[in-house]
């Protein structure tokens, strides 16, 4: 049986990989993919806690289902916004979208 802390370490590493991706990428779609990695790290945490801390009410699994549905909405709208930016400015690089920056 794999102890809980192993899963937590796994998801911590995954989360930090995602953070690195979000900070280091300039292509908006790659940033979204990195956000997905972070989201999945969180979901692994939810399910690991659900398995080891509240195994009978499986609250974590239910939360994960809702997180997935919310993630679906998030990536759909996120990509649509990126497409809109691309249509206006011919780029998906976030450092070139600086209209509101001074």
């Amino acid at each position, binding site marked *: *049986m*794999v102890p809980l*802390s192993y*899963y937590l*370490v*796994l998801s*911590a*590493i*995954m*989360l*930090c*990989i*995602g*953070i*690195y*991706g979000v*900070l*280091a*990428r*300039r*292509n908006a*779609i*790659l940033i979204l*993919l*990195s956000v*997905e*990695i972070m989201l*999945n790290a969180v979901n*692994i945490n939810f*399910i690991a806690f*659900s*398995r080891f*801390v*509240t*195994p*009978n*009410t*499986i609250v974590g*699994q*239910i939360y*994960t*289902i*809702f997180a*997935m549905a919310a*993630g*679906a*909405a998030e*990536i*759909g*709208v996120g*990509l*649509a*916004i*990126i*497409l*809109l930016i*691309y249509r206006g400015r011919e*780029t*998906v*690089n976030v450092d070139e979208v600086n209209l509101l920056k001074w």
Partner: protein
Amino acid sequence: MSGQMVAFFIIGFFLLSGALYIVSTRNIMHAVFMHLLTMSFVAAVYILLYAEFIAAMQVLIYAGAMTTMVIFALMLTRTQSSPEGMRTAVDNQQKGLAFLTAAGFLAILLFVVTREKWVPLEGVAKSTGSVSHMGGIIFSAYVLPFELISVLLLAALVGVVVLTRKEN
């Protein structure tokens, strides 16, 4: 080492290397395809955690549907994903800073995770996440979030239809 442990390390290795590949490759399409594999390995982690329904959902929604959607969105842009745009950089100049931030965050997290003693609240596991068990909980205690999810999805759909419509 038990079989579960071996499986965990194999899955964890592929999962983390897939995630690293996504954040480090220069080829966006490769990143998206690797997203498919990484999400499948996340599903494998869920299976190790006895959440088989969530694992199937993960494959269906994250691996299948989202990857397809990201690819469809990528094909609408002609930047780093197309052959001629492949030469422009996909990373910004703050890679070192980003690495430091991520490493610092990781150090804090590892410190917390390894220091804490995690106690089960409900004793030994009696049930795994069977579909009907889960359904019973969603449709009794979590009805409101469930209905709100539908509104959220509706908002996303309407938003996308509005955002992607051609002005003519």
